[in-house]
């Protein structure tokens, strides 16, 4: 995994960050009669509207995550910013492990719960140090959604002194054995 680089000079302007999971069921490509992720979708849209309130939003995500971001931003009528445009808002598409239960996509791995607990604590604490130090090799084994995105989130948070960011977690659950968070971080 390679962390996306953060261009100096643009990152300083970031004041709003939202985190959503890269759940493909959020895409319009995969519609159901009953939305299997209705609560998650509602939380994602709330976070996306919030992060987009200040203007265009830059997306941090892998290829699939970028599609999820585009769909959510589109649904919330928030424009997407280019990488070097100095957007104040950033949408990070990343999630926890996918090995939390026997029914999880990656089957049960006993290390998953502890990994997610630590990652969740880092998110809630807006802990730049913990996020940038994420064990991306283990994250890969545990099928974490876009580990590099978590590292980049840490880098973004590190642009300001510790304690300058406040996190608000709108969703924290693992309905399919995959850990999802929807969170907003403001400075």
């Amino acid at each position, binding site marked *: 995994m390679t962390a996306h680089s953060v261009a100096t000079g643009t990152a300083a302007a970031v004041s709003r960050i939202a985190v959503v999971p890269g759940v493909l*069921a959020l895409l319009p490509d*995969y519609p*159901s*009669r009953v939305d299997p992720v209705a609560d998650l979708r509602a939380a994602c849209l709330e976070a996306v509207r919030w992060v987009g309130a200040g203007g265009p939003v830059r997306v941090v995500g892998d290829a699939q995550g970028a599609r999820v971001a585009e769909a959510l931003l589109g649904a919330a009528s928030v424009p997407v910013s280019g990488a070097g445009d100095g957007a104040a808002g950033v949408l990070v598409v990343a999630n926890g492990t996918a090995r939390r239960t026997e029914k999880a996509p990656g089957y049960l791995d006993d290390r998953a719960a502890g990994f997610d607990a630590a990652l969740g604590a880092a998110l809630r604490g807006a802990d730049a140090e913990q996020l940038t130090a994420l064990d991306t090799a283990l994250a890969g084994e545990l099928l974490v959604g876009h580990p590099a995105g978590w590292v980049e989130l840490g880098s973004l948070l590190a642009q300001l002194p510790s304690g300058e960011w406040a996190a608000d977690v709108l969703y924290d659950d693992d309905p*399919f054995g995959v850990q999802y968070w929807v969170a907003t971080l403001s400075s």
Partner: protein
Amino acid sequence: MLRLGRQTFADDQTLVMAIVNRTPDSFFDKGATWAEEKAHERVASVVAQGAEIVDIGGIKAAPGVEISAAEEKARVVDFVARVREEHPGLVISVDTWRAEVGDAVCQAGADLLNDAWGGADPELVDVAAQHDVAMVCTHTGGATPRTRPFRVEYEDVVRAAIDDTMAYADRAVAAGVREESVIIDPAHDFGKNTFHSLEVTRRLGEMVATGRPVLVSLSNKDFVGESLDLPVGERLIGTLAATTACALAGARIYRVHQVVETRQTVDMANVIAGRLLPARAIRGLQ
């Protein structure tokens, strides 16, 4: 839009019509709902199972003891009135070919006249128009009500079914039945041998292509039994396979004995055809 008396339905919606017999001798249930309370229980049961329509019949289709119009009315009219009262949102269909009976059941609250005998009584369309109810126009090849086919042959059974049902539909519209309230039915086994019913099933898409909503009545019929060499009572799986074929072709209404099994079959076929979304898909998309 499809309008069935009091109710309207979107053009992409499939409907299950549950058979409720007020007869002592119909081929499948053999009088199971002849007792009036049993028939009411059957209605409540199929409504709970999700049937949008009940089709109430007072005379079995096969030959047998002659049932007068007065006797037919005695079997169905008060029954329809009570079903109307107990299930205000339910579409009530009555399986009759007689205008006199049709008039009485419409006054009692019927929404749809299912003329399984293809216009044998020319005044039935006028009754439907007067009461602003819907009509099912079936193809029987000109068969007399309650007769079995005997050495019937067609140049092209599907062409005949389309031409006759569309002509009957035009007659209904000319009489004043709403365009959106006319349904056509190839009538499997009516005036048809098994080969005819199979061909109609195979080529049902040609009937759907007319643009009129198509009803199919396949449930436990002889063409299923002869295809599989199975007696009445062992034809559910064959019925559901035929239902799949018709659903893929785009049939809209399914007249059935088994509601739950039919609804699942029709929905599955329509999900495969891409006309209906999966109920709740998350596998691999978490």
